[in-house]
C-alpha cells in the first residue's frame, strides 16, 4: 500500500532498463519500496539493473516483457499481479528512433510508434484493469514535452508521445473515483543514454531530477508533472505560437 506521502511499497517498471525508471526506483527503494518487478526484454542490462536495486535492499524480480508484442502483455503482467498488489506501475519504455533515417525507412518509424504508443496502449490498459481490481495504486506514464507540440526535428517520436499522452490523460479520467491514480510525466530534454551525442535543448534535466519530480507528484497526487516545472509555462506559450513562427524556431 502507498503511505500518506504516496510512497509505494511495491513497484512494477515496464521498461526495466530505462534510466529515468531506474533513478526513480533507486529513490523509492531508499524510501519505502521493498518489492520491485523489472519488466523488459531479457538482457544483461536488465539483470544488471536488478542486481543494482538488490544492492539497495529491495527484493527484485525480472519478468520478460516486450512492448512490441501486445498479445503477451496480459500474461506477462498477469503473472506479476498474481503475486501480490502493485502500488506503483511505472510505464517507462520508449525509443527515440532516428528521425532523419526513419523518414526514409517508414517501417522503422512504425516501430517507434508501435513501441511508444500502441505498446503503451496495450500495457496501460492491462495494468489499469489490474489496478482497478485492487482498488488502489498509481500508474505513472513517462510522456515527453515532445508530445506537446510536434517539431520538425523529431515529429515521429513526438507524435507517438502525443498519442501516449492523450491516452494516459483519458485513462486517468476513466479511472477517476476508482482509487487508481494516473500521473502523466512530461520531462524535457533528459541527459541519458537515449540522448547521448545529441545537442542539448534548453532546460535540460537529468533522470534523477525526473525521479525527484515523480516522488513529489506522488505525494501531491498530481495528474500532470513537468520536469523541470518551468516547462509548463514555456510549453503553454509554445503551444500557442502560429505554425509559421513555430516552424522557424531553432529547436
Amino acid at each position, binding site marked *: 500500500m502507498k503511505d*500518506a506521502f504516496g510512497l509505494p511499497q511495491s513497484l512494477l517498471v515496464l521498461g526495466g532498463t530505462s534510466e529515468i525508471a531506474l533513478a526513480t526506483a533507486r529513490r523509492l527503494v531508499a524510501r*519505502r519500496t521493498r518489492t520491485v518487478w523489472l519488466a523488459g526484454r531479457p538482457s544483461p542490462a536488465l539483470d544488471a539493473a536488478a542486481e543494482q536495486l538488490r544492492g539497495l535492499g529491495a527484493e527484485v524480480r525480472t519478468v520478460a516483457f516486450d512492448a512490441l508484442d501486445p498479445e503477451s502483455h496480459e500474461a506477462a503482467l498477469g503473472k506479476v499481479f498474481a503475486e501480490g*498488489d502493485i502500488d506503483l506501475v511505472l510505464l517507462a519504455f520508449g525509443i527515440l528512433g532516428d528521425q532523419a533515417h526513419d523518414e526514409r525507412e517508414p517501417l522503422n518509424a512504425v516501430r517507434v510508434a508501435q513501441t511508444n504508443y500502441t505498446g503503451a496502449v496495450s500495457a496501460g490498459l492491462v495494468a489499469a484493469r489490474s489496478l482497478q481490481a485492487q482498488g*488502489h495504486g498509481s500508474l505513472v506514464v513517462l510522456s515527453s514535452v515532445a508530445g506537446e507540440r510536434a517539431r520538425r526535428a523529431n515529429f515521429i517520436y513526438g507524435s507517438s508521445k502525443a498519442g501516449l499522452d492523450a491516452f494516459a490523460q483519458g485513462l486517468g479520467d*476513466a479511472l477517476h473515483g476508482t482509487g487508481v491514480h494516473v500521473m502523466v510525466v512530461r520531462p524535457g530534454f533528459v541527459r541519458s543514454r537515449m540522448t547521448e551525442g545529441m545537442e542539448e535543448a534548453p532546460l535540460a534535466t537529468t533522470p534523477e531530477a525526473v525521479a525527484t519530480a515523480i516522488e513529489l507528484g506522488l*505525494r501531491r497526487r498530481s495528474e500532470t508533472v513537468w520536469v523541470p516545472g518551468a516547462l509548463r509555462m514555456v510549453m503553454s506559450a509554445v503551444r500557442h505560437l502560429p505554425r509559421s513562427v513555430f516552424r522557424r524556431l531553432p529547436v
Partner: protein
Amino acid sequence: MSADTVRDTDRGPDADWDTVTGWGRTAPTGALVVRPRTYEEAAVAVRDCGVRGGIARGLGRAYGDAAQNAGGAVLDMTALDRVHAVDVAGGTVLCDAGVSLHRLMEVLLPLGWFVPVTPGTRYVTVGGAIGADIHGKNHHVSGSFTRHVLSLELLTADGRVRTVAPGTPLFDATAGGMGLTGVILTATLRLQPVETALMSVDTERAGDLDDLMARLTATDHRYRYSVAWIDLLARGRATGRAVLTRGDHAPLDAVPARSRARREPLAFRTSRLPATPDFLPGGLLSRTTVGLFNELWYRKAPRVSRGRLQRISTFFHPLDGVPHWNRVYGRGGFVQYQFVVGHGREEALRSIVRRISARRCPSFLAVLKRFGAADPGWLSFPVPGWTLALDIPAGLPGLGAFLDELDEEVARAGGRVYLAKDSRLRPEMLAAMYPRLDDFRALRAELDPRGVFVSDLARRLAL
C-alpha cells in the same frame, strides 16, 4: 471503467463503489461501501465480500488507512445505531456498534450517566472505540475504552456471532485489534455517574517542557481528566511550553444557584460553527500562521484558574464545534503522529520535542498526556508513560523521512506509535513496538484462515 453501482434490494444491503480515506484525507482507495441496516445484512455482507475481504468502518475518524479496504468491501456500520437498553440503576448500556459517543451522551447525560472514556471527538462509534481501543484524558485514572466493555458481540469470518467477554484471548485481540478479528455488532459498557453535564476545570501554564512534566507528575492524580496543549513551535528556553487543562465532572453544588445550568444540570449542550469549506487551498497552516496561533493560544490561557465551569463539549471536544475541520489542511491532507514512551524514558521525549521544535513543524494540535497502567488489548496503544500527539500537513517537505527518524527514536526507547492514527509507519518497526503482535497474528490465522477481514492498514503493515 466507470464506477458501477451494485444494488440488490431483495436480500443484500445497500452498497456502492466509492473512494475512501481516513480523517487525514491521505491515500484514497476504492472500495465497495456496504451499509448494513440489520445484523443479518452485516452477516450477508461479510459472507459476500469476495477475495479482497472486508473491514468495518464507523465515522471515519481514524486518521490513516485503518477503515479502508482497497478493492474489497468497507462495511459502513453507522446505520446500526440503536441504543438497546440502559440500566439506570446499575450504570450500564447495551448498544449497537454503530452508535456514536455523541448519541450516547444525548441519551445518557439526562439520566445522570456519562461515557466511561471519550477521545477528543464525540463523533466516533462504539465499534471504532473498541477496535482502536481509544483513550481519553482520564487514561491515568480509568484506562482505555475497552476496560469498560463488559461484553461484546462479534461477527467472525465463519459467519458466527460470538459473545466475547473480557479476559478471553478473543477479547484481548479485538480490543485495539483495528477491526481485524471481525465486525463488532453490539457492546455493553459500564458508565460513569455524573451529577451535572458540566466540567469543573483548572487551567495553568507551564513555561517549558520540564516544568510541564513536573506539574503533570506531581498533581495528575488529583484530577480525573488531564491533558496539556503543547506549543511545538516555541524555541529556546520556551521549548515545550504548554497549557494544562485538568478537571472533573462538576458536582451539583458547584453550579451557581438560580442559574439555568442549576435548573437543568444534566442538559447536554453543544454548539457548532459552520462547516469548513471543501475548497481551501493547502498551505494555510504555515509556520507563520500556526506560530501566531500558538502564541495567542498560550497568551490567552490564564496563568492559573481554578474550578471554572465548562460544557462537556468545550472541555473534551473543542474541534467538534467546527464540522470537517480536517479540510483546513487542504487537498493534500495531514498526518497525525502519536507515540508513547514509558516512564524513565523522559530523555527520549525531550529529545523528540526538541527535534520537532527545531524542525519548525507547523503543528497547532499538539497534545501531551501522562498515561496510566497499560491495557490488556494485544495491540492496545497505551503503556504507562508519556504520549505526544501532533498534526502536521502531509505536504511538508521531508516529513516522511523525519517521522521515520522519530520512529527509530521511539522504538529505541521501548515506545510505540498509535495505529489508529498511523498512515506511514514502516512494517519493520511494528514487531518491536507491539510485542504481542505474534499472538495477534496467530489468533487471526486460526479465527480467519481465509483472511476475510483486511484493511489497507493491515496490508501496509502486514498485520
